[in-house]
């Protein structure tokens, strides 16, 4: 694995795509059923140096997959079930491309693993909250990340052709883990017995047919001749009529303008600085927002909360992949607190409408992506800011918040802060923040007025309050100090502190993929000169240091 290859990773990866631009997947919608088919083009990897053979995927594939899942929610809301299968005979997917991983930087691998799991959680979220059930139709060999993708679906069907198996062969073949959610979903979601799981993950060839069903690895198998028909029937059964009352909207592009100063969208703006290795994100709320009409879809994809959170989502992905050197992100808001609170209230009043609800779900997912972004986050609550309700979640997601002591600077809670936008641990950010004081968290529902810095401080809603004399200095010192500390130690510490409270499948997945999975990735047994991942595809056998850690 030569390091020179690593320079091939593009530094301007775009997350903005459209079905008309898909290269690797086919999205078809037929009434209440949608179909996503993996048709991955070997020669269209994200960078030179690997071929996406056997429907193996890279980030470019997953960007399309994430886009498709999102578009089915917004553009095809009538859909009740989605099948995920392959367009290549005999192969569903052989998982993440090993040679791509081999030529990627460590940081890229971690972010890649995170992103793919955010996509998979998006699939699970659509199944649970949008009435769009995903079904994996494994019409061929399903291995590694391919099976991890299948595990994200609500039901899994495998073709019984005496050949196709589901497998998690990472340990025997590569000396790494099926750790991008695979192990966790196996025991936590499908609840496969732990001893059987232990056998399964050390079995390179995987399991097929009856045994795969018996061990709960799949929900059913059908012979090749009946596979398409039987699976389609099942999907049609799940979909039923779908949601005929829902009329989709078209999602427009959120592609930003990028220049040397930063990344600029309509409502979200990133500027590099104020010092090296830092960036400032400013979210602006227009003074006037339209009321939600009786048919909310008339607002279209330009509706402020949809547009803004899509922009923020896109920006977070770009920050992670294209700006690894930025370690500290300052979060600013500009606008009217009243406007934000009125919007929150209007949205929650109309949440019975699929579109409004879908936007709330999007906000939830984007805020989770912020929670999972391994950059230090400081929220700056200063003059002109509008940290209220849904936007106040940004400050609660931040590692710290700084509030200026001034007459016209305030924050305000709304119903959005009390469970509508939960974190991966299943709790609201307020509940997580006040884990040791549940009464305080629930008592905050009575705080519905704007809070000045004294009140915010008193209620524990901000970290620091400084007056205008101290503001600039304190911030400068805090920013410079933070930007100088070990990025690895900060990443680990922030990830440990952000997710207090109960473990969920979601927190386990991210905790384990960023710790276990990626620790194993940098160990010599995987990526050393004689490591299993290094020598994959070579005739040489790996040599392990057999001492356990």
């Amino acid at each position, binding site marked *: 694995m030569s390091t020179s290859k690593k320079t091939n990773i593009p530094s301007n990866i775009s997350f903005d795509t459209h079905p008309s631009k898909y290269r690797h997947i086919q999205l078809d919608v037929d009434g209440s059923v949608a179909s996503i088919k993996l048709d991955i083009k070997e020669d269209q990897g994200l960078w030179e140096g690997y071929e996406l053979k056997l429907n193996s995927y890279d980030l470019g594939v997953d960007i399309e997959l994430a886009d498709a899942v999102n578009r089915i929610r917004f553009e095809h809301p009538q859909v009740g079930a989605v099948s995920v299968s392959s367009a290549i005979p005999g192969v569903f997917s052989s998982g993440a491309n090993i040679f791509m991983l081999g030529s990627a930087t460590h940081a890229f691998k971690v972010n890649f693993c995170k992103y793919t799991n955010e996509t998979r959680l998006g699939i699970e979220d659509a199944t649970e909250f949008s009435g769009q059930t995903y079904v994996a139709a494994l019409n061929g060999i399903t291995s590694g990340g391919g099976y991890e993708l299948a595990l994200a679906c609500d039901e899994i069907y495998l073709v019984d052709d005496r050949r196709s198996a589901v497998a998690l062969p990472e340990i025997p073949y590569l000396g790494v883990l099926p750790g991008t959610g695979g192990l966790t979903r196996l025991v936590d979601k499908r609840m496969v017995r732990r001893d059987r799981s232990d056998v399964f993950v050390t079995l390179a060839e995987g399991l097929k047919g009856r045994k795969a069903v018996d061990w709960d690895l799949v929900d059913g198998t059908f012979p090749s001749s009946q596979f398409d028909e039987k699976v389609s029937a099942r999907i049609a059964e799940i979909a039923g009529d779908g949601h005929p009352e829902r009329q989709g909207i078209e999602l427009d592009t959120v592609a930003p303008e990028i220049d040397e100063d930063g990344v600029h969208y309509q409502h979200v703006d990133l500027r590099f600085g104020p010092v090296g290795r830092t960036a400032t994100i400013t979210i602006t709320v227009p003074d006037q927002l339209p009321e939600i009409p009786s048919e909310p879809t008339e607002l279209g994809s330009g509706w402020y909360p949809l547009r803004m959170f899509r922009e923020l989502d896109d920006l977070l992905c770009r920050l992670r992949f294209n700006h690894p050197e930025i370690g500290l992100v300052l979060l600013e808001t500009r606008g009217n607190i009243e406007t934000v609170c009125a919007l929150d209230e209007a949205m929650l009043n109309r949440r019975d409408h699929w579109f409004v609800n879908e936007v709330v779900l999007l906000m939830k997912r984007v805020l989770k992506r912020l929670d999972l972004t391994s950059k230090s986050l400081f929220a700056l609550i200063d003059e002109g800011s509008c940290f209220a309700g849904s936007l106040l979640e940004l400050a609660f997601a931040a590692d710290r918040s700084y509030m200026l002591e001034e007459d016209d600077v305030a924050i305000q809670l709304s119903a959005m802060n009390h469970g509508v936008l939960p974190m991966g641990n299943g709790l609201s950010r307020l509940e997580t923040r006040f884990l040791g004081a549940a009464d305080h968290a629930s008592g905050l529902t009575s705080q519905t007025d704007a809070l000045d810095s004294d009140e915010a401080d008193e209620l524990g809603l901000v970290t620091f309050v*400084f007056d205008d004399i*101290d503001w600039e200095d*304190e911030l400068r010192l805090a920013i410079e100090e933070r930007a*100088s500390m070990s990025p690895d130690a900060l990443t680990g510490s922030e990830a440990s502190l952000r997710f207090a409270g109960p473990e969920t499948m979601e927190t386990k997945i991210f905790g384990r993929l960023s710790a276990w999975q990626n620790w194993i990735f940098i160990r010599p047994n995987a990526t050393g000169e004689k490591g299993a991942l290094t020598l994959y595809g070579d005739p040489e056998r790996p040599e392990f240091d057999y001492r356990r850690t």
Partner: protein
Amino acid sequence: MSISQFDSIPNNVDLNSDRKLQKALLRWQPNYLDWWHEMGPEGFQADNIYLRTAISVDAGGWAHYDYVKMPEYRWGIFLTPRATEQTIGFGDELGKPAWNEVPGEFRKELRRIIVTQGDTEPASVEQQRLLGQTAPSLYDLRNLFQVNVEEGRHLWAMVHLLHGYFGRDGREEAEDMLVRRSGNEDSPRILEAFNKPIEDWLSFFCFAMFTDRDGKYQLAALAESAFDPLARATQFMLTEEAFHLFVGETGVDRVVRRTAELMMQDPNGDVRKLGGIPLDIIQRYINEWYSASLDLFGGEDSSNAATYFATGLKGRYKETTKGRYADHVALGESYSLDRPDDKGGVMTEDIPMRRAMNAVLQDSYRSDCERALNRWNKSLAKAGCPERLSLPSPRFNRLQGVFMDFAALPDGTPITREEWESKRATFLPSEADRDYVKSLMTKVYEPGKMANWIAAPAKGVNGRPQDFEYVRFA
């Protein structure tokens, strides 16, 4: 305290227009005055003292003499003026512009340096608060108070840096400097050497000679700092510090001269009979204060020192004086450091120069102390006295550094711990020594008169005669 009261604080830091400083001082200054009343010189707060006050940074302004009651002393805030933008004089950032703000990444180190240095200033005032009651002359009483108020001003200088550059943390640290108390069980001063009271004037002179001189070298190292406000503040402090060292060096010299005089008077050379301080006691005081002061430099082999040098926080003595050091990066060089071997002896080891920066500073200090010893020995020779005083070896009686807990004679010869303990009273002051010295301490407040155990100074303060009324009692 109202804003207009800032008018009475001499300064060249734009105090009248700096809201940040005003806000911090509004709270801190009353606490400072409370501290001064509680912990400053005991029993003399209402008296008029002939004191020097720095009222500006001009050539004439830093030494303005007049009678003043100590609580009304005009403690000011001064930074040595700069004609041009400074550049960093050493370390990895050599040649880059000096910092006018604290870089966030060095915030904790700089704060620690400033707090540790600043804490010694009020600590010494506390240690000396009872000394005035046994002053050997009005001249000495006045000098003690001059040292005290200026240590107070140095506290102001350090607090100004904390207030001006370290935000809320800095204000809290500044508060703490007024909360800690020398020798207090619960909140002692940071450095152990500043937690013992100074109970006799020979100790005071030794303190001003040896311990304050460590302070001079620490301040000089900080005067090279890349953090320019610290460099400027400490440079100005050094101008005042020179007087403190003068008090120490001439104070010991006057004791030595008086002792030599009495030795010549007594047929057996026994100065005790004549109420003087025997030379061997003086030597033991030197041994104790010198070795304890060396401990204040920190470890001779120190990675902290290397970091401070590399990052430009703390330089060597006169780092940027032309011709003194050829190489201001000090990366390729090494330093031959004596350290204990594992057989009870001493070996020499080459360590990277940067790690030896505390030792390098100690070396500058040591030669400065040697110079003072020569002067005292000249006084002995002039009086016809054959005995000589000496500085102990850096291996002797150390509680810090590479020779920590090493047993060596004052000349550096290694001996066993048992032997060292058995001979302890021959080279360090015994309780009997201290009691004897204390027994001589009785106040002499008549203008021009001196206690019997000390010679008169060569001249008075600021051209005033020796019998000038340096202190006017209320």
